[in-house]
């Protein structure tokens, strides 16, 4: 990608900082008592002024969660998590919530500016609308008016519950039911905020929609829930970015994202995940347990997941597509980088139900330091998925001799007409390549960044322009100190 040299400049400008988003914003917050109980669930629901049906749904989820056990099947070493030793709700004190950007606490605006996400519309990249989620609540959403002209709803999920309850009620939990898995169930009980997007029939969103998640408060979990509905023939590209302060204790992030694509609709969902990864000895960092799933319900619908995962101490994440509509298409493009003591177990699930459904999986895992990086993916062809096609390519790159790369593909085909391909490679970053780049004047870290960005190119080129440069820069930063 042509942006790489710019990338390297930016990389240079931050090489002294290991994790430049590690600062804390000092702000008054409205915090729920520590711990998790039915009372806390009621507290969150009451804080948000939710209708009875949603409280009931949360309570059902909470009761189901009490009966569940944390999954053990991933290749992750996780210290036991004390769910009673965390706060489940923390909101910056903003009275009844800001009516406009002028009412948002300047300290919060400053925080986002430091993160490179100015929330004042005129300063932000033209053509990107942003929903900013700070700890448990959405603090600002930009370009609402412009989007409303098109009939697009882009707001926090809390606002959607208030203003569009029928839509929320119809679709929430319809892709990821509240009983789905341990972390999704926990999220269903205590989710605090997140984004809501509704694209009406036949509308192409005129701009990229984006949510920027920021964990600030100490000992606080972030449980956001995002719901995107693309009606017949509509199109939206949605971006998500994440950062958190640098702290010695682990913090929990358990999000749920549900996408629904109806006939001929297309959703492009991109993530650049850069939660605090912990220090080089594995102290601190975010535990990132995320359930992301898309239902391609309509015929000819398409969902494309692109993720660049560079942060978090632990990443447990499998953005998936249920290809229900005939001719529907699912794509998964992933870069996962683990350095130092980071662990990632990530991949996708492509469930082919409809006829002539197609899926593509391109996964690039980069492992450095003492990190472990696992691709885990499922391709399932159901009996009625006549003519289904899948192509999977998993490439792993190792830097140094103390890290691990693992590929665990599950392939289940119940239809003889289906074609499923899987290719996998594992390589080491070569001393020849490094020397060649350095002989041309690149520092060792710039050389690693360039080589790894080349390795990831097939994935990076699926990112929207606005994110591509940031993502390339992150690749370099997250691999600092991995050679030499």
């Amino acid at each position, binding site marked *: *990608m*042509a942006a*790489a*040299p710019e990338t*390297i*400049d930016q990389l240079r400008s931050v090489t002294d900082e290991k994790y430049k988003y590690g600062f804390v914003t000092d702000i008054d917050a409205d915090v729920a008592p520590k711990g998790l109980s039915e009372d806390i669930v009621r507290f969150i629901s009451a804080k948000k002024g939710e209708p009875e049906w949603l409280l009931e749904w949360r309570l059902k989820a909470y009761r189901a969660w009490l009966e569940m056990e944390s999954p053990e099947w991933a290749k992750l070493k996780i210290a036991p998590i004390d769910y009673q030793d965390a706060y489940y709700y923390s909101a910056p004190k903003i009275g009844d919530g800001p009516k406009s950007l002028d009412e948002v606490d300047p300290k919060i605006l400053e925080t986002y500016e430091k993160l490179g996400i100015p929330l004042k519309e005129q300063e932000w990249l033209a053509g990107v609308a942003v929903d900013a989620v700070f700890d448990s609540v959405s603090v600002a959403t930009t370009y609402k008016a412009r989007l409303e002209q098109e009939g697009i709803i882009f707001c926090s999920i809390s606002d959607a519950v208030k203003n569009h309850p029928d839509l929320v009620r119809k679709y929430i939990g319809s892709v990821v039911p509240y009983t789905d898995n341990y972390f999704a169930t926990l999220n269903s009980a205590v989710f605090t905020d997140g984004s809501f997007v509704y694209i009406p029939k036949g509308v192409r969103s005129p701009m990229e929609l984006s949510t920027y998640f920021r964990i600030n408060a100490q000992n606080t979990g972030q449980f956001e829930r995002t719901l995107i509905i693309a009606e017949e023939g509509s199109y939206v590209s949605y971006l998500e970015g994440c950062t958190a302060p640098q702290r010695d204790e682990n913090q929990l992030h358990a999000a749920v994202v549900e996408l629904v694509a109806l006939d001929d609709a297309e959703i492009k969902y991109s993530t650049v995940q850069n939660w605090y990864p912990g220090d080089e000895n594995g102290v601190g960092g975010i535990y990132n347990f995320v359930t992301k799933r898309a239902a391609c319900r309509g015929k000819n619908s398409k969902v494309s997941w692109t993720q660049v995962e560079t942060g978090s101490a632990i990443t447990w994440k499998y953005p998936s597509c249920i290809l229900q509509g005939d001719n529907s298409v699912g794509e998964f493009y992933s870069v996962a980088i683990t350095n130092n003591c980071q662990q990632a177990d990530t991949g996708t699930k492509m469930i082919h139900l409809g006829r002539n459904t197609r899926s593509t999986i391109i996964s690039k895992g980069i492992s450095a330091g003492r990190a472990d990086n696992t691709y885990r993916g499922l391709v399932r062809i159901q009996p009625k998925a006549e003519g289904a096609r899948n192509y999977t390519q998993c490439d792993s790159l190792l830097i140094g001799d103390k890290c691990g790369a693992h590929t665990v593909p599950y392939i289940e085909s119940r239809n003889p007409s289906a074609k499923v391909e899987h290719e996998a490679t594992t390589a080491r970053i*070569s*001393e*020849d*390549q490094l*020397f*060649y*780049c*350095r*002989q*041309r*004047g*690149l*520092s*060792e870290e*710039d*050389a690693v960044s*360039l*080589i790894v*960005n*080349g*390795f*990831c*190119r*097939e994935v990076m080129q699926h990112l929207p322009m606005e994110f591509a440069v940031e993502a390339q820069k992150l690749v370099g930063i997250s691999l600092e100190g991995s050679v030499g």
Partner: protein
Amino acid sequence: MALLEIRNLHVTVENKPILKGIDLAIDKGEVHAIMGPNGAGKSTLSYVIAGRDGYEVTDGQILFDGRDLHELEPDERACAGLFLAFQYPVEIPGVTNTTFLKTALNSLRKSRGEGELDAMQFLKFVREKAKPLGIGDDMLKRAVNVGFSGGEKKRNEILQLAVLEPMLAVLDETDSGLDIDALKIVAEGVNMLRGPDNATLLITHYQRLLDYIVPDRVHVLADGRIVKSGGKELALELEAKGYAQFSGAEAA
């Protein structure tokens, strides 16, 4: 003062002595050729000048433009104006030739305190450099050396040389694997870059490259030592008589 001055250079690779006391001085404006049989230490000399890991200098020193290279990392040597055209250019999948060249050039410019070229300025610049080498936009857009033929790889090295404009270019067996047409293109490229402020060190096994790039001095390297030096006619003599006359040294 010579641009490159090598004094009594001893180098071991995995504890095995390869270079056993090299003395060599190259002035600005000169082209020197180092010839020698396989295993004489020619590539070792090029790598040790460029600063590759695994080549241990046990005695002597290399001065480049008055600086002791021993203190400098490979990228610092490149920024100081040293270029090595590789015998086996390395593939870098996913990184386009243009991106690679632009990144490299801007690294060098930055180290010299010069402003960086933006994408448009660079494209114009690189096209001018690429044209005489028969390198078109398609080759600039391809990933560095990936799927290149032997001749394309060597031309690509010369393109990098032309873009980076070093003070000293070391060409390690740049003629190997080239047919006569490709050899001429490469040689013309090198000749075009010759100037009063730079110098070239050609490392080659065969004399034929020297028909096209005429050296000021020719040195014969055998068994880790320069056993004979002379003018361009020495190359012809070697062509006629072969390296057998130095085989006594080579047998060691």
